[in-house]
């Protein structure tokens, strides 16, 4: 990077807000994925004006920019592919307004997801999207990736909860889109921007919907001796049109790792469990609990346990939300998939994953948002073994191909990034992708923002770079 650019960034932001030494930059070479890429400098603006100035400088020096929240993303969205500037939003972490009467909050992008819910808890409100990394991940990152979480089954993903944004465009212009109101006349630019993975604009302020906490919450744990019984239960819950707030599945292999790590009380000798949460009015929750228990029993659940109190409930969720970390203890590295299938195809999809596991001789743990068909098969491997890593990539592609073939999607909540960009043609035709690329060019004409992401760039998947050192993932995904 040109030293003059670094000097100008320091003049703009102060020396403490600019990192350019190799040892500092190493922290920003990775995120929660298996990708790796090094920026040339990392800057920490404090306000929108500074972001706009950074963008203008980057334009002048023709240097790419990547926005970054907490770096918990799972598709390489916050990693720089080609050097350049990473803009860390950790200093822009203020909740600017809580408008409880209108169920809105205005936040800066660096606000941690769970911090917003905590800040409005005393008002009986919370922010509904709940990625498993919600203790660390930021709302700006959630907006970029259109993040989900277990409770999106009932409440929707980030896109359903954003009503307005302030953007810094790649030419440094500052624009507001949407607002606090719903259905602002005009094209739904919020809908376009959420999930655009930092390739259209940098988001510097977000207006989100807040949700009232439900009166009653009930968490059920259904324990099974076979995977088929577990998946058939999920199908049957969907077919009977019962909509729980969350319906998560963990297979036996994952459970044993989780139990050894978290001690949540999961049975270690079963094939799989379903973790089902019901929310709403007491009467509705009771009726749903009875109906779901009946479905579980019809499909030979060994046990259907109801969490007795908040402590037990939180422990079960701690187990679920730390499942990636638990599996990370078994292996130097893991590779998380994020495919989506029509919910009724769950049993055959799981059989496909078992087959892939055998074929490629890899250990795969299964942690699913089963209720909405969002799968997270987690392939364990040792990245020092290049031959094994090639098998991991091939296995991943085989699973994703199956998902798309049964009518599903490549990613349900983690994003495409630099992980699945070469797989995009599985789902989209050249015409589909050409139109999306033209939309990108309309916002980001010279590719200043997050280049090399989301769209195929013709690099073979086997060349995905791996981390130089073993990582035990402690931040759950």
């Amino acid at each position, binding site marked *: 990077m040109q030293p003059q650019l670094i000097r100008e960034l320091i003049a703009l932001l102060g020396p403490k807000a600019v990192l350019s030494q190799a040892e500092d930059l190493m922290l920003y070479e990775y995120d929660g994925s298996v990708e790796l890429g090094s920026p040339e400098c990392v800057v920490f603006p404090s306000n929108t004006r500074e972001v706009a100035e950074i963008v203008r400088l980057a334009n002048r020096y023709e240097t790419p920019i990547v926005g970054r929240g907490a770096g918990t993303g799972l598709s390489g969205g916050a990693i720089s592919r080609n050097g350049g500037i990473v803009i860390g939003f950790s200093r822009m972490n203020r909740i600017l307004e809580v408008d409880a009467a209108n169920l809105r909050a205005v936040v800066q992008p660096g606000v941690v997801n769970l911090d917003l819910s905590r800040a409005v808890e005393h008002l009986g409100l919370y922010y509904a999207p709940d990625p498993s990394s919600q203790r660390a991940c930021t709302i700006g990152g959630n907006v970029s990736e259109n993040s989900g979480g277990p409770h999106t089954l009932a409440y929707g993903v980030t896109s359903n909860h954003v009503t307005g944004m302030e953007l810094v465009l790649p030419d440094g212009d500052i*624009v*507001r889109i949407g607002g606090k*109101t719903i259905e602002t006349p005009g094209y739904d630019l919020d809908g376009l921007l959420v999930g655009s993975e930092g390739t259209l604009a940098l988001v510097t302020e977000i207006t989100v919907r807040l949700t009232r906490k439900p009166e009653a919450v009930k968490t059920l744990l259904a324990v099974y001796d076979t995977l088929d019984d577990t998946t058939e239960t999920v199908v049957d819950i969907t077919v009977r049109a019962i909509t729980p707030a969350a319906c998560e599945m963990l297979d036996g292999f994952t459970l044993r790792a989780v139990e050894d790590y978290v001690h949540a009380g999961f049975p270690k000798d079963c094939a799989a469990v379903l973790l089902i949460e019901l929310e709403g009015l007491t009467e509705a929750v009771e009726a749903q609990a009875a109906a779901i228990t009946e479905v579980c029993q019809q499909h030979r659940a060994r046990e259907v346990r109801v969490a007795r109190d908040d402590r037990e409930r939180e422990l079960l969720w701690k187990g679920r939300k730390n499942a990636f970390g638990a599996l990370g203890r078994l292996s130097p590295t893991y590779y998380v998939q994020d495919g989506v299938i*029509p919910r009724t195809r769950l049993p055959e999809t799981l059989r496909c994953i078992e087959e892939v596991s055998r074929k490629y001789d890899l250990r795969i743990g299964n942690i699913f948002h089963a209720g909405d068909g969002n799968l997270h098969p987690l392939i364990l491997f040792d990245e020092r073994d290049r031959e094994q890593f090639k098998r991991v990539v091939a296995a991943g592609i085989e699973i994703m191909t199956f998902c798309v073939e049964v009518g599903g999607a490549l990613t*349900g909540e983690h994003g495409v990034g630099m992980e699945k960009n070469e797989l995009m043609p599985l789902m989209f035709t050249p015409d589909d992708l050409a139109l999306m690329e033209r939309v990108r060019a309309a916002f980001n004409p010279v590719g200043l923002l997050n280049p090399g992401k989301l769209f195929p760039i013709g690099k073979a998947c086997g060349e995905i770079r791996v981390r130089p050192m073993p990582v035990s993932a402690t931040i759950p995904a």
Partner: protein
Amino acid sequence: MSIPAQACVTRLEEIVGGAYVLTHSAELGARHVDGTIPSAVVQPAEVAQIADILRFAAAETLAVIPCSGCTKLGIGAAPARYDIALDLSRMNRVLAYDPRDLTLGVEPGVRIEDLLRVLAEQHQFLPLTVPFADRATVGGIIAANSSSPLRHFYGGVRDFCLGMEFVTGEGAVSKAGGRVVKNVTGYDLHKVLIGSLGTLAVITRVNFRTFPLPPAQGTFVASFSDAESAFGFCRSVAQSVLTPQILEVADPAAADLLFSGAAPARITPQQWCVVITAAGQPAVVDRYARELGHIAGAANAAEFMPLSNAEQSSVLARVREFPRLVLEAVPAAAIFRLSVLPTAMTPLFAQLSEIAKRRNLVFAALTRASGIMYATFFAEEGREISASEIAAAAKEVFQLCAQPENNAQAMLEFCPADVKRAVGDVWGHARPDFALMKRVKNVFDPRNVLSPGRFAGGI
């Protein structure tokens, strides 16, 4: 039109067959947009034909407006040009419906009433109980982003539309989103088509998630003597643990339009009426009845009454059809659709009433408590009023909404063509994001073939 009309018709006939290009004046007149009639109506039956039509239109710089039920062609600014009405009514198939998975894929010409019937056979529905229900089609509902009273609980189209296939203004067949209930692969281009009034692409397939019909439903009407009591009641409901399906507020004039005559005799239209629908298990609906009654009492309701099943059907159908009822009663009415925050509803209503009063107009408003107000202005019975008078009121409405403390957005959704001309722009004051919208338009329709001039910012 750059080519002779007959040459245009001949080419269209080559694409779709002679029987599906209509040029009778009655057919053309039925598809007029603000008084402008097309030169031809073309009725394609498949995506490839639409692509051919649009490529032809782009090459010849012809303006194309998609339509089907023709219930909402009056929405938006008057078109700058209009050569071909692209009638999608032959594309009316349900392409995929997996009731077990609660997902659905349909063509744009499916009438919503027919679709809801198909879903009801499987005890499912879409929360799209929208105006003009007997004629409105899926494509038009999406293009106009029609609002349903069920929005209160289920959200808008953007919240349950999973993906779309469409043809751009250049005739490129494309798609975005997907067919599964959760998906973040690629840009959500389908979201920008919602409410785009046919200015970006012609929608050829829409994928939705469907919803189970609740086992029981109950509707209640609470009546109040003033605006603050009625809106205050809604805010109290929002602060409770209750999450009704529908929560609509009709001022006395709107209640009169809705309930005088056809509606249950027990509703007194001289009052503010709040219509609330609860759904779920019978025990849940019973609980709503009890608690809503208490909240209404605390908000000084004059009356709180549960409706019988027959009354419920009639009341909900009339609430759903509110814009249509207004237009049937007063064809020259101006109907604004306002996006408004709950806390701004009472003061905004007062100021809108004040505008009407000053200009000797009748004002009636139906407000969706989640944040949409249908604000209507029309002349008293027997009084003639000029387009310029209505337009002057409209300009005041736009100014009022633009004030920061009101935090509201307005568009003039329905009004006579001469009022549109007098108002200038039915989309209200220019907003800072119009420039970005133009960029989006240029990507989807660089030759400005699709519905030119009808959209915000002159798009």
